[in-house]
């Protein structure tokens, strides 16, 4: 019997687990995929929003501003990349100024610090690649960019280090209210728990509706993106948003913490909660809209495109509360943008809720920090030489595009909640994320995975499940 089971190992679930692990509690995260960060958390804009978007007084607005404020310290504690680059919302004509002003006013009301409306010249001085016809922009210096994979993985690893269990490939099929707590029926057996945290992303409505008469409804809202090569990574230095107008919503153009350029997303409501396929229409939209605010975008430098699903609840608000007619069942639902930004605050809010209900007591030996995978690029030449001498695996480049060494890949596999698939290695080390998109390194990474995990090459997958990379040997069916 667990005290708390968290359904979902995305940023919300992992943040909740990490905050909860400050207390003396027996907790477990159930994740249907083979790794954390496999749903909404892995495919989004990777933006830490300033907080002027959400309606004043909403939970979204509150947690956005809080999360933004927490992100910097958290990135230091848990060693993940975060850069406070600032953002601009581009206004293209004088007639749209009221909308820009409204955004500014809302931001101020939400408690966003440092907002400024810049004129054309100021914008172009800051970002010379913004289109010439820019009229003005809302500048938010507190906005930033983050690596969502590393944020998610860091939270999970730290929760694990503080005693939270993680069960992967474990899909909750049904939830039953018991005399005490809940029974979770999964594809891998039955779990009992006193409390449930429903952090299931696009599936959160399904679990909520299993225990409550007050139904909620989540629409997977697909966002298509294009990722550009690092050669385009400095095209803009801040996140460039489009001002939503009567003519519609544009796409953003942003640098990423790893030096690429990201363009997107679309917003297409779909039915399929697994519908992460890009479509031609979506891609065309991204490409068409990309140039509205930023000029000369080198769209020929696209190295990959992908789509993510936002968990859009009908009420367009975070639902973080105990379900009224299901005591002990805590929703953490409708976590769409600014969910990534808010996740540190979401974690605290969920933990506070449970602390109060369960009367949790703090641990004395809580480990507040975590070291990420060592990136030799951050070392001086001398340090790097010493590192290779100590561990020659750091002298062996496996991914030539991102210059990832065998040492980093071994670290990614051996550390707690380590990588077990090519995508797992990729999210942790960037091996395979570069311009050749794993063409060169995947056979090499497979060998390392097989060796380190004692797996056969036939068991190695791209991302768990049936995503095997090789299916047989030469001539085996002849």
């Amino acid at each position, binding site marked *: 019997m667990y005290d708390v089971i968290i359904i979902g190992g995305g940023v919300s679930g992992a943040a909740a687990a990490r905050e909860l692990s400050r207390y003396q509690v027996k907790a477990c995260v159930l994740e249907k995929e083979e790794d954390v960060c496999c749903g909404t958390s892995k495919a989004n804009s990777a933006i830490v929003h300033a907080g002027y978007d959400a309606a004043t007084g909403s939970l979204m607005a509150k947690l956005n501003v809080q999360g933004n404020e927490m992100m910097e310290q958290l990135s230091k504690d848990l060693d993940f990349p975060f850069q406070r680059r600032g953002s601009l919302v581009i206004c293209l004509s004088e007639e749209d100024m009221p909308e820009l002003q409204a955004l500014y006013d809302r931001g101020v009301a939400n408690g966003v610090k440092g907002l400024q409306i810049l004129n054309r010249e100021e914008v172009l001085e800051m970002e010379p690649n913004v289109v010439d016809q820019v009229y003005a922009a809302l500048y938010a210096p507190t906005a930033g960019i983050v690596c969502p994979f590393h944020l998610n993985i860091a939270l999970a690893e730290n929760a694990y280090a503080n005693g939270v269990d993680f069960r992967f490939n474990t899909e909750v099929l049904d939830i039953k209210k018991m005399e005490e707590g809940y029974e979770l029926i999964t594809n891998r057996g039955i779990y009992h728990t006193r409390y449930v945290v429903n952090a299931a992303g696009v599936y959160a409505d399904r679990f909520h509706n299993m225990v409550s008469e007050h139904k909620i409804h989540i629409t997977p809202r697909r966002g298509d993106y*294009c*990722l550009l090569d690092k*050669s385009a990574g400095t095209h803009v230095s801040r996140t460039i948003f489009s001002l939503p107008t009567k003519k519609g919503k544009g796409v953003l153009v942003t640098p990423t913490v790893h030096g690429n350029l990201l363009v997107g997303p679309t917003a297409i409501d779909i039915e399929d909660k*697994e519908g*992460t*396929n*890009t*479509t*031609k229409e*979506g*891609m065309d939209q991204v490409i068409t809209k990309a140039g509205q605010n930023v000029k000369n975008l080198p769209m020929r430098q*696209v*190295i*990959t*495109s*992908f789509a993510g699903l936002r968990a859009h609840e009908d009420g367009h608000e975070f639902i973080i509360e105990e379900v009224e007619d299901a005591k002990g069942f805590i929703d953490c639902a409708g976590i769409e943008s600014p969910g990534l930004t808010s996740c540190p605050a979401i974690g605290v809010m969920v933990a506070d809720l449970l602390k109060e209900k369960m009367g949790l007591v703090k641990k004395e030996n809580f480990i507040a920090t975590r070291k990420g995978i060592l990136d030799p690029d951050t070392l001086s*030449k001398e340090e*790097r*030489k010493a590192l*290779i*001498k100590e561990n*020659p*695996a750091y*002298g*062996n*480049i496996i991914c*030539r*595009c991102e*210059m990832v060494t065998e040492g980093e890949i071994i670290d990614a596999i051996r550390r707690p909640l380590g990588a077990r698939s090519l995508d797992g290695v990729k999210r942790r080390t960037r091996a395979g994320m570069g*311009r*050749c*998109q*794993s*063409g*060169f390194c*995947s*056979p090499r990474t497979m060998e390392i995975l097989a060796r380190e995990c004692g797996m056969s*090459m036939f068991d190695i*997958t*791209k*991302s*768990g*499940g*049936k*995503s*095997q*990379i*090789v*299916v*047989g*040997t*030469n*001539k*085996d*069916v*002849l």
Partner: protein
Amino acid sequence: MKQYDIVIIGGGPAGLAAAVSAKNSGIDSILILERDKELGGILNQCIHNGFGLHTFQEELTGPEYASRFIEQVEDLKIEYKLNTMVMDITEDKLVTAMNREEGLFEIQAKAVILAMGCRERSRGALNIPGYRPAGIYSAGTAQRLVNMEGFMPGREVVILGSGDIGLIMARRMTLEGAKVKVVSELMPYSGGLKRNIVQCLDDYGIPLKLSHTVVDIKGKERLEGVTLAEVDQKGKPISGTEEFYSCDTLLLSVGLIPENEISGGMGVEMNPVTSGPKVNESLETNIEGVFACGNVLHVHDLVDFVSEEAASAGKNAAAYVREGDRLENEKEIVLNPVEGVRYTVPGTICVNRMDEKLTVRFRVGGVFKNCYVSAYFDEERVIHRKRQVVAPGEMEQIQLTKEMLLKYPDLKTITVKIEEA
């Protein structure tokens, strides 16, 4: 810090031939840096035959062709380091490299020959919509898995792109027991050699669908199938022509890109058409003493021409090292590719530095039948060679001689073009 006269980046066909040629031109201090565990580069996985007709007057497989050069490198006692990645090179030719044994180390070179080869374009670069399951490989990745490691990436295969690697892999996969259902090519012509269509597709009854592309990818975990559609003249899919092929494997053979991150980092100027360095008659880049050859310079279809080009780079690098042998760079003649000719290598010629003969290589932008390859020395047409057919998949060349050029002392521009009959 170690010093070498010539450091060659890459131990594939280009690097090997450049090394042998530089050594034979009298330079002893040569080092080849190779990132893989053996010399030979991509030839090690190209186990099919068809290499070496020009160079050795016989048909060899890739590994055999490579071994001929590796033997020479060994016999000539040319130094090389394996499993060694070059991290960067400065404009002053300070090479930083890394391997397990020596860690991070620096080498000062007098001359550098860039011979890093190329990489394959990936799915991402094509923006093919759909899911992103396992089962989608570049043809070269599949080639490595099958030929070097003995693993089958899948059972039922669709190939997008009719570049030579794609065609070769259609046959390889078939002979290892897979079913290759179709090869789809976006363009109205194949990107590969004609003989590969005959011996890799026709021999095995594999259909080639020209003007077709993949418009959807099905399968969340492992690939379950792809949808092909015909495309119009602009390459846009024609609605209503979609056809679904169930398959567990999609191989991409959609183009090669010279691998010039290191070159760019050191300040080498690039030709946007080839994605390779701009070079002069000596295959020298804008940085003095930095030469380029093989697929890093421009993508070749025949390794024989890579070897030939690399030998020239090696010889020129040797001349550069022995400074005295090199004449002053006088005025340059500019090569101007127009009307069907996409680029030329080299891009400029300095007559007093060129050899008696100079091969100018280029590719065309479309299929031209019964045409002429022409070169105009300023206004005067000097070369006018009849060709039955020229196509983008096959590299073309014209030969210039010093004798020819000396007859035109005021020559400024050589325009290379395709002319209709």
